[in-house]
């Protein structure tokens, strides 16, 4: 089952993956990472189609996509 | 091997190639253009790289890149061009890269003229580039010495991972004297030289677990780390100061009434004058620093004999090595200076007059 994971240590909460996701299944977490950023997280993994657009646009290589 | 009559600029180039230098980047400038032209003809013959860069700035940065890859590399220029290289030299020293830089000095400041001078002593020995670093500086006074210093310079550069400057002048660059060269290094010897640097230089990698990540870099954004780095550099410089003092004593004895200090071309003129006044019964000695950094402070102090009335410094500038001589003499006896600027080389007669005035 496709899934996207964000490594909170790398994410800077820039929001580009949220804008890129065609299924709109990424949001800012309520939690913050050690640098104080609300990192991105996928909240509906079963809707993920592994299009990789989140990975493509992420400037911090924080995202891993599996299929 | 037999001696050949050769121009200084060409002799140092030939000696560099024989020492295993296989990359040379430079820009033409009088009075050292024969050096770059010789390299243009001869480097391809040993399958080396000759590249005329777009500026002295570009050339020194090409040297940085090639030195970062662990190969013997050289550049040359003359005073205004050496000023352009100062940024690059500071980076090379900070990144601890071995290389050789030849300065064939001419009259300055600014565009100056194209005649021989010694006005870059401060630039070479007291900085020139920004920050705390030192250049090892060799100052030849004959074409043979100029050539010999090529291989010395490369050896010192490799030994200490530091840039080395050969501080010559337009006279040495242009004049022709007999010179004997060392046997050229073999391809195997050169390959071995390159291999020795592979513990730190940029070179092909391997897969884990033998992968390396070498950085050729002088940036240390953390002040604590930069402090340690500079302290490490200065430990190295302390070693060099201990090991690499080199000077010549000419007619130095306890009977000296005057002790002269001069370097490079100036020292040859002083030697002639010393011989002339000797015939008049005046006993004058000369101590000639051969390496001007590290500077032979101790040796100069020791050379001041019991009868010495003054130390006389002669340079083709307004008094630059003079400062170091004053430090060495440390008030023991008066220090006097006479120099010539404008790219004019004083004559033995002029020096003789100055010496006679002391008696």
């Amino acid at each position: 089952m496709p899934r996207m994971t964000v490594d909170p240590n790398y994410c800077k909460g820039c929001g580009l993956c949220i804008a890129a996701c065609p299924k709109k299944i990424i949001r800012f977490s309520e939690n913050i990472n050690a640098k104080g950023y609300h990192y991105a997280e996928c909240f509906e993994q079963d809707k993920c189609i592994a299009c990789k657009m989140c990975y493509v646009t992420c400037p911090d290589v924080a995202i891993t996509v599996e299929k | 091997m037999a001696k050949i009559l050769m121009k200084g600029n060409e002799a140092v180039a030939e000696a560099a190639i024989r020492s295993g230098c296989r990359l040379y980047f430079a820009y033409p400038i009088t009075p050292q253009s024969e050096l770059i032209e010789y390299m243009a003809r001869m480097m391809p013959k040993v399958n080396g790289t000759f590249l005329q860069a777009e500026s002295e700035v570009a050339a020194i940065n090409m040297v940085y890149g090639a030195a970062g890859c662990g190969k013997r590399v050289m550049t040359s220029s003359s005073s205004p061009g050496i000023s352009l290289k100062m940024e690059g030299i500071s980076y090379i020293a900070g990144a601890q890269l071995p290389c050789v830089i030849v300065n064939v000095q001419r009259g300055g400041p600014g565009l100056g003229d194209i005649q021989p001078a010694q006005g870059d002593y401060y630039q070479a020995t007291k900085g020139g580039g920004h920050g705390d670093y030192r250049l090892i500086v060799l100052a030849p006074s004959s074409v043979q010495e100029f050539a010999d210093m090529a291989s010395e310079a490369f050896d010192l550069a490799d030994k200490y991972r530091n840039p080395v400057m050969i501080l010559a002048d337009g006279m040495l660059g242009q004049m022709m004297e007999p010179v004997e060269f060392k046997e050229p290094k073999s391809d195997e010897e050169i390959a071995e030289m390159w291999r020795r640097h592979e513990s730190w230089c940029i070179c092909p990698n391997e897969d884990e677990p033998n992968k390396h990540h070498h950085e050729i870099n002088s940036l240390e954004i953390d002040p604590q780390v930069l402090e340690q780095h500079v302290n490490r550099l200065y430990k190295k410089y302390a070693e060099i100061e201990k090991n690499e003092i080199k000077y010549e004593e000419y007619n130095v004895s306890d009977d000296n009434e005057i002790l002269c200090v001069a370097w490079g071309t100036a020292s040859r003129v002083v030697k002639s004058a010393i011989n002339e006044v000797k015939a008049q019964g005046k006993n004058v000695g000369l101590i000639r620093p051969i390496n001007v950094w590290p500077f032979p402070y101790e040796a100069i102090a020791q050379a001041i004999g019991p009868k010495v009335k003054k130390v006389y410094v002669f340079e083709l500038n307004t008094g630059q090595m003079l400062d170091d001589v004053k430090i060495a003499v440390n008030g023991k006896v008066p220090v006097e200076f006479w120099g010539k600027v404008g790219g004019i080389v004083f004559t033995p007669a002029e020096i003789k007059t100055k010496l006679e005035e002391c008696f």
Partner: protein
Amino acid sequence: MEKIAYRPASLTDVPFTYCPGCLHGVAHRLIAESIDEHGLINKMTGVAPVGCSVFAYKFFNFDMAEAAHGRAPAVATGMKRARPDMHVFTYQGDGDLAAIGTAEIVHAANRGEHISVFFVNNAIYGMTGGQMAPTTLPEMKTTTSPYGRKTDDIGFPIRVCELLDSLVAPYYIERVSLLSPADILKAKKAVSKAIQYNKEGRGFTFVEFISTCPTNWGMDPIKSRDWAKENMLPFFKPGCFRDKGAE
């Protein structure tokens, strides 16, 4: 389950020091992916500039050199001439390449040096706090053009691809945008081609990326992309200027 998108081997684990939403990280990743895909990681080396990407030597997972401001193409020339068996790239911003480094890039390109140059153009000096760049647009306000860039006083932005395209030697020159996922996919093709040509020893390759600077433009990452699309792309037109390999 298999990973289909993950951190390339040619990047270290060190987190990028760029601002949130800055697209430098995307450019780094495209270069790293291409190096991996072309199997060059053990023979690759690069030169970091002075600018926001001054720490690039920490981010790429192979030997790297740091250069003085603008001098990367000269340093890369020395490296490639010293170790022709290795593959060399430079990574430079608009101040590094188009201001202080203009001579070095023109001459490295003119000599056809066998290096790849990756040029990130965001029309401003990021690292030093938002000063004007040679690529700053007319009337664009920066800390050193507080009244806007006045073209009758200091001229117009420099189009580097067009400049280099006037030279005979360069092998491949393309301008790409990083301003949307679709554009990034196109940019990847250009980067991969540049690395492939580098691997094959074909000559000088150059890719210019149109990028953003959210912090110094004073916009969020999404707005910055929109602003760049509207204002930068009309002046800096993406496209392939030359590709001798396609002839």
